[in-house]
């Protein structure tokens, strides 16, 4: 029995080491993980514009280009996050740093989500100060989906050569948009923005900290576009507050996008598309 238990203990130690090595590797290789660690330890966190959102914003908003001599922007978006996760990120930012941004740009995808999800992104959850770890948080369980991403990075030079610049993930890879505009035009689902409890929480946090919250609907491939005007639309959230919303997913909105060069698949912009789009944001939002 003693020999067997010794084997089991060594096996468990080995498994713990594998987990630690895996955690170390993903935190060094995975863009989202790197980004998260970076945003928790910003050397100079005095940003005027803080961009929150998921992978559409992570790839599609060029924070470097959005910055100017007067204003500095940081793209804090993380791939796969919910609005609840964005709320946690903002709360942490405000708690961790003495500075407050002038604007929080919450870049969303109303063409896909209703913003009510209570799911917290595993990376954010794992790296939150007061998180209670359980058996399910073993890195091999919690972050196993990142393993394929790591392999992609090893295999594909396009993934390997991507870079994080002021929080934006710049990818040169191109996948053409082969979709067509919807036969029956869609409308921007205002109701989803107004009723989202997490947008309301972000808004309340911004009000308390004297930050302007701007909502931004991200562009999408042709098949996912709506025909609601760009705006800005003044929408009243269910908590009674007014917030500005720019619909950059409008069929009429044009940032000079080229379906063959500006996309990277599933409505994500590549670095060329992101540059074009960010210039247009500056123009429309007068930043």
């Amino acid at each position, binding site marked *: *029995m003693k*020999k*067997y238990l010794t*084997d*089991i203990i*060594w*096996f468990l130690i*080995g*498994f713990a080491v*594998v987990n630690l090595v895996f955690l170390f590797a993903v935190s060094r290789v995975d863009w989202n993980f790197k980004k998260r660690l970076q945003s928790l330890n910003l050397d100079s966190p005095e940003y005027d514009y803080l961009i929150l959102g998921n992978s559409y914003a992570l790839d599609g908003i060029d924070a470097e280009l959005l910055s100017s001599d007067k204003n500095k922007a940081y793209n804090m978006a993380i791939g796969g996050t919910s609005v609840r996760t964005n709320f946690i990120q903002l709360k942490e930012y405000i708690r961790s740093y003495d500075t407050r941004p002038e604007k929080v740009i919450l870049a969303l995808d109303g063409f896909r989500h209703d913003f009510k999800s209570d799911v917290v992104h595993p990376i954010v959850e794992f790296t939150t100060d007061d998180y209670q770890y359980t*058996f*399910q948080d*073993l890195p*091999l*369980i919690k972050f*196993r989906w990142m*393993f*394929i*991403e790591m*392999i*992609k990075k090893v295999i594909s030079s396009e993934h390997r050569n991507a870079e994080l610049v002021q929080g934006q993930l710049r990818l040169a890879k191109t996948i053409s948009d082969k979709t067509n505009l919807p036969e029956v035009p869609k409308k921007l689902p205002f109701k989803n923005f107004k009723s989202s409890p997490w947008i309301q929480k972000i808004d309340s946090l911004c009000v308390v900290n004297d930050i302007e919250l701007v909502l931004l609907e991200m562009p999408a491939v042709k098949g996912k576009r709506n025909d609601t005007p760009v705006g800005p639309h003044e929408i009243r959230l269910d908590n009674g507050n007014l917030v500005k919303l720019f619909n950059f997913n409008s069929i009429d909105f044009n940032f000079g996008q080229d379906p063959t060069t500006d996309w990277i698949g599933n409505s994500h912009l590549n670095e060329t598309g992101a540059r074009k789009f960010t210039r247009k944001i500056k123009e429309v939002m007068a930043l």
Partner: protein
Amino acid sequence: MLFNSVDFAIFLPVVFIIYWFVLQGKLRLQNFFITLASYLFYGWWDWKFLSLIILSTFVDYSIGRLLEKEDRTSYRKIYLWSSIVVNLGILGFFKYYNFFLENFIQAFSLFGSEIRASSLSIILPVGISFYTFQTLSYTIDVYRKKLQPTHDFIAFSAFVSFFPQLVAGPIERALHLLPQFYRKRHFNYKLAVDGSQQIIWGLFKKMVIADNCAEYANMIFQNSAEYNPLSLIMGALFFTFQIYGDFSGYSDIAIGTARLFGFDLMRNFAYPYFSRDIAEFWRRWHISLSTWFRDYLYIPLGGSRGGKWRNIRNVFIIFIVSGFWHGANWTFIFWGFLNALYFLPLMLTNLNRNNIGVVAEGRIFPKPGEIIGILITFWLTVLAWIFFRAENLTHAFSYLEGILIGTGQNQIDFFADNYQMLFLFVFIVMMLSVEWLQRDKEHGLQINPSKRKLSWALNLVVFTLCFLFEGNQADFIYFQF
């Protein structure tokens, strides 16, 4: 409680520690504890159905005692049939009531009669087909005087409910398993290491192969009208490996877990996809069920004795009943029928016991004739699995039509989901290669215990792969049977 769950990862070490450290040497207490642990394991799904297991235990224990005291054949027969009626009655009600009712109504409607009856919303208790057959084997063996009836109710309860094999087998014989509950058990290092390795190999087959294959098999079978022939063939292949990984994986975990407690369960799979003919396949697939039907149905029906036609009848009965055992659906019956058709030429030409030993024994590669045999058997099996997986017979035939005529247009994307499917191909090849190299051993990770470090290092690698490439489906297919 699922084997590949956090609950079981906590349950197993706790039971192991109490069993060996607190109750070591106290046989009755160990058996009692196994019974309690097994009830907890089963009750984790639905404690209400525990009553069925307890009822079966009481009925078969009591009938065993009655048979012991009774010498008159007529009374012995009554006792035996009482057990059969109770056990199969419970199974029949939970598993087949709605099937018979619906088919009865349909049959009458063909003659213009209309029968009004409503089907019941019946939940099928997990593993009912497995433990019912196990308890029946006890009563039948006692009736045949092959086995002394037990006087130890606790040992018998532990035998009926033994948690490693309670819900999906192997279906143990009382002759083999029950005596193990009478003997003092001593911890055996080699057995425990081998058991651990078998558990890990089972987890790999379940979590990596079966659960990932399930995603694609479900996607293709559920939308089969849309897919082109290549995709439909791939769908059938995915299901072929899903069901193997799922069921043989479960059996490996069950056998390995039993070994940790000092028990030896019968082998349930012996690399069936390397079979050179369909007869060999059935000696290697779900061995505990095939041999159960052989011993308790085929042989009592006369087996291969009594002329050609009787023999053919018996083959069809055993295969069709075996198919029906899997579920109340014509697809399973047709699957059994198809396998009987495959088997028949071999039996009629006396070639059904041609391939008994290990394929390509002493060689790395098989001979061309063996390769052809393996490939033919494999594709016949794939064809039969289409019926097993289809929702109904219409679906199965339209699936085949889709393969042969090409009614759908969609092609599965081999590179979708971050190359997930390509990784799956690599793992299927890896599983087949490992099992080919280990085909003279009991499982894929059986390594000489003298190579202790190498063996544990390999365990660690395979265990890590289970987590990195775990699929989404959690339930074992055979639980529904």
